[in-house]
């Protein structure tokens, strides 16, 4: 949740709410002030004009006019009265002349007793004007109406602002969540790409907004990185490719030289050279094989194959080798573990794992192979009690050419695990390593789309679930 508020999208949304609120309040306030002012100004003008017009009327005419006016004033907002020269009221609905100059101009009086009422006080505008006969005419209008009007606007403002605020907040959160969802999706995809799913790309919607633009650019960048990666590997593969013939030719010539020469020193040198050329040819062949698996075989037609049969076959194949080192080799299989794949490639991958396990396990050790399904996912696991892998080396063992420092005297191209990993990947399996304390556990686990969290209880009988893998 904290992360949610930290995101730039949420900050934007909150800013949006604040700005919207300020803008709406400003508009309402302006309307409120304007309406009040306009009403008052209009009343002032009318009063002044009426006062000016009535100056020439006779007292009797005024009395009639005032009576008529006050009778018609159902809302009780008009004031009208005539005072004599001593400022004593002659007639009208107000007893005392308010404290305003008698100048025919309108004046504001804050508290005036309401017309026809004894206690109500309210603001009003008054005009007092001296008549030619010395009397003073007073006209006024209560501002009650415009006050009421203001209150209506106030209430409307209050009533309107709360939903408006909520609406703005809602819209802001909606957009923030949508944006953060997209950003989260992008984050997830980038994480998967970094884990090795280099073919993945960020989603680009047709909205053409900033996120889309950035996603598009990132995708271009990924394409470019992918191209460079392919190029880089291609360089290596091309070198391997070009070395094939010269190596084979040198090999052949040395062999023939060895047959035809009797010079012991030359023969010894040739024998040494042959050993190294054999090694080089092994590496070149493995590199080309790796390139084949990684790039050449994506379109191959997979068939239903049985991993149990693959493991049983390899178990029989490797059994004599294990026996010759007094290694106890065991096999645990379930009746049939069918997957979609390539029989020969899977054989090669598992063969590499078993071969390695025997190679790195000292005499009287143990190698156990198990194959089955765990949580619906196919698993092949090869455990040994050998030299294991140093913690510092664990993330390197799947790299090309990497061979454990302690395993350097054991012959091999250093590409076996790379090829196994590539084959596993081709079959949508993960190749993982775990510590067997002592020794190593290598396992190939189908990615499948079955349950993400492995649960110990669901594990099939033969395969005991282990502590989480540390990779």
């Amino acid at each position, binding site marked *: 949740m904290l992360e949610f508020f930290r995101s730039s999208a949420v900050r934007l949304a909150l800013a949006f709410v604040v700005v919207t609120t300020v803008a709406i309040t400003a508009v309402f306030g302006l309307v409120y002030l304007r309406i009040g002012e306009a009403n008052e100004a209009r009343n002032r003008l009318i009063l002044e004009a009426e006062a000016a017009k009535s100056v020439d009327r006779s007292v009797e005419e005024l009395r009639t006019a005032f009576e008529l006016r006050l009778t018609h004033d159902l809302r009780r907002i008009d004031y009208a009265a005539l005072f004599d020269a001593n400022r004593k009221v002659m007639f009208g609905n107000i007893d005392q002349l308010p404290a305003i100059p008698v100048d025919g101009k309108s004046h504001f009086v804050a508290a005036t007793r309401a017309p026809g009422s004894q206690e109500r006080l309210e603001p009003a505008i008054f005009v007092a004007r001296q008549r030619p006969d010395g009397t003073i005419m007073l006209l006024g209008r209560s501002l009650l109406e415009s006050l009421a009007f203001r209150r209506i606007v106030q209430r409307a403002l209050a009533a309107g602002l709360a939903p408006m605020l909520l609406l703005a907040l809602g819209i802001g959160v909606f957009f923030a969540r949508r944006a953060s969802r997209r950003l989260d999706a992008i984050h997830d995809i980038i994480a998967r790409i970094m884990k090795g799913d280099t073919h993945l790309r960020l989603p680009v919607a047709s909205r053409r907004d900033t996120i889309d633009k950035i996603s598009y650019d990132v995708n271009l960048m990924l394409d470019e990185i992918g191209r460079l990666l392919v190029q880089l590997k291609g360089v290596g593969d091309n070198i391997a490719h070009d070395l094939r013939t010269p*190596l084979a*030719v040198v090999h052949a*010539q040395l062999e*023939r030289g060895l047959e035809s020469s009797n010079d012991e020193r030359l023969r010894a040198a040739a024998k040494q050279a042959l050993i190294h050329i054999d090694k080089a040819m092994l590496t070149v*062949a493995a590199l080309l094989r790796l390139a084949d698996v990684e790039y050449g075989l994506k379109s191959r037609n997979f068939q239903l194959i049985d991993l149990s049969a693959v493991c049983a076959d390899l178990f029989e*194949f490797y059994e004599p080798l294990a026996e010759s080192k007094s290694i106890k080799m065991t096999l645990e299989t379930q009746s049939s573990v069918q997957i979609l794949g390539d029989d020969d490639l899977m*054989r090669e991958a598992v063969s*590499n794992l078993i071969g390695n396990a025997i190679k790195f396990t000292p005499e009287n050790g143990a190698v156990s192979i198990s194959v089955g399904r765990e949580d619906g996912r196919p698993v092949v696991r090869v455990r040994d009690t050998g030299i294991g892998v140093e913690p510092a080396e664990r993330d390197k063992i799947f790299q090309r050419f990497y061979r454990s420092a302690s395993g350097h005297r054991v012959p091999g*191209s250093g590409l076996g695990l790379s090829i196994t990993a590539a084959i596993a990947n081709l079959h949508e399996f993960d190749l993982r390593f775990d510590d067997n304390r002592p020794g190593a556990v290598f396992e190939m686990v189908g990615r499948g789309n079955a349950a993400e969290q492995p649960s110990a209880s669901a594990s099939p009988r033969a395969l005991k679930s282990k502590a989480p893998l540390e990779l």
Partner: protein
Amino acid sequence: MTGKSEAHPKSILLVEDEKEMADEIRSELEGRGYLVRAASIAEAADAARVGDVAMIIMDRIVFGEDSLVALAGLRKEGVKVPVLVISALSSIDEKVKGLKAGGDDYLTKPFAMVELVARVEAMLRRLDDVRTTKLRVGDLEMDLIEKTVYRGGVKIDLLPREFRLLEYFLRHPGRVITRAMLLEHVWQYHFSLETNVVDVHISNLRKKIDTKGPPSLIVNIRGAGFMLNANA
């Protein structure tokens, strides 16, 4: 069809566009007494049709042309000449394709010449094979129907995998057999191994069949593989 009449009946046709490779193969095979002729795909096909060639070694791609098309055509016509396909394409798919098109064996570059020679000799040897139910070398006798092995009249119990291994040797007596050939033809494993597991299988087999003590029936050929001693 030039030079057809002059051709040695046991000549090997070599269809390979990589000159250094072709030169090496030729001098290697000629050094072993074979007559080797370079040929284009079309020339090789013509020679095969008239039957004046012992076997064909052909590269998978020759001057950009896929030689498997011509090979499949030949097989359709019923031409049975043994064909060894060599190729830079190492994926199993390609091997399967090569064998399906009618190749008798498939070799991936880079290979050691001993590997090529061993396969060529195994293929030429196969010409002399007849359909048989019994294989015999010296006093070692294998009954393919009964699945039994006798040496000097004494029965030897073999595991099925040991039986298959021995059968392969008995079918190619006196020939160099490489580890890769055993992997491919006995176990059907089309990949290379970094362990000496094949040697262990051989040594286990030796323990069972060498009932008369040394020298062993199956000898190591340094830098190449093994051979069943045909004169034992």
